[in-house]
């Protein structure tokens, strides 16, 4: 199953992929394009990716999680292209025999994905301006797009 997609994230499809009567606990994380008080008037984020590398690196993250929490199943998805504010751009689902491992594997996978996957985002504001945004930048300090 491919991690990168240009379509809206299909939560049911992800849950189906890990469904197994032996796995009683399923944890999911959805990260959405945020437009809060501190975010400025963000209309959407335009995500781009180095797709081949994203796929191989995400497969490694999943393998590592399976090694650390035996029996856990992990899947994920990252939407690229234009994602409107309020819609999910990233999803991680981890199913495990019990809930502690499900939460741990889900959290670990999203943290590793944020750190390791070559994905970039450009914020699109309501006034039509754009800015590249790093994950470690404070919200009001996004790097302006060179003109």
């Amino acid at each position, binding site marked *: 199953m491919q991690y990168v997609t240009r379509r809206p994230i299909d939560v049911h499809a992800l849950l189906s992929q890990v469904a197994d009567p032996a796995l009683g606990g399923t944890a999911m994380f959805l990260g959405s394009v945020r437009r809060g008080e501190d975010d400025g008037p963000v209309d959407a984020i335009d995500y781009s990716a*180095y797709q081949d590398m994203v796929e191989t690196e995400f497969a490694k993250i999943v393998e590592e999680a399976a090694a650390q929490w035996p029996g856990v199943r992990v899947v994920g998805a990252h939407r690229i292209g234009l994602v409107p504010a309020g819609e999910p751009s990233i999803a991680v689902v981890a199913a495990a025999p019990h809930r502690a491992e499900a939460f741990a594997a889900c959290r670990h996978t*999203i943290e590793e994905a*944020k750190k390791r996957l*070559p994905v970039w985002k450009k914020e699109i504001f309501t006034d039509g301006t754009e800015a590249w945004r790093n994950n470690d930048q404070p919200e009001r300090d996004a790097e302006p797009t*060179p003109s």
Partner: protein
Amino acid sequence: MHFREALSSSTTVTVTVRAFARYAEILGLETTTVELADPATVGDAVKRLRESIPNGHLLPDRPLVAVNSEHALAEAPLHDGDELALLPPLAGG
């Protein structure tokens, strides 16, 4: 995916360079090739790009890079046919 063995006697290595996101905007290109004296490292390729491409000096000295889709350091060797990717600070999710 590369041809190191077939070309091991050559005295140069040619690598495909891919630039993404803001680096693609800065350089005005998404892909190019560089030819380097063998042996060559990631650092050698970045130095060449910074010196020879318009706006190349706007790249960091040590950008985040991947070689053949694996995260790599500036000291990593490059072989003929390798794909070197220049990765702006990651911002997924």
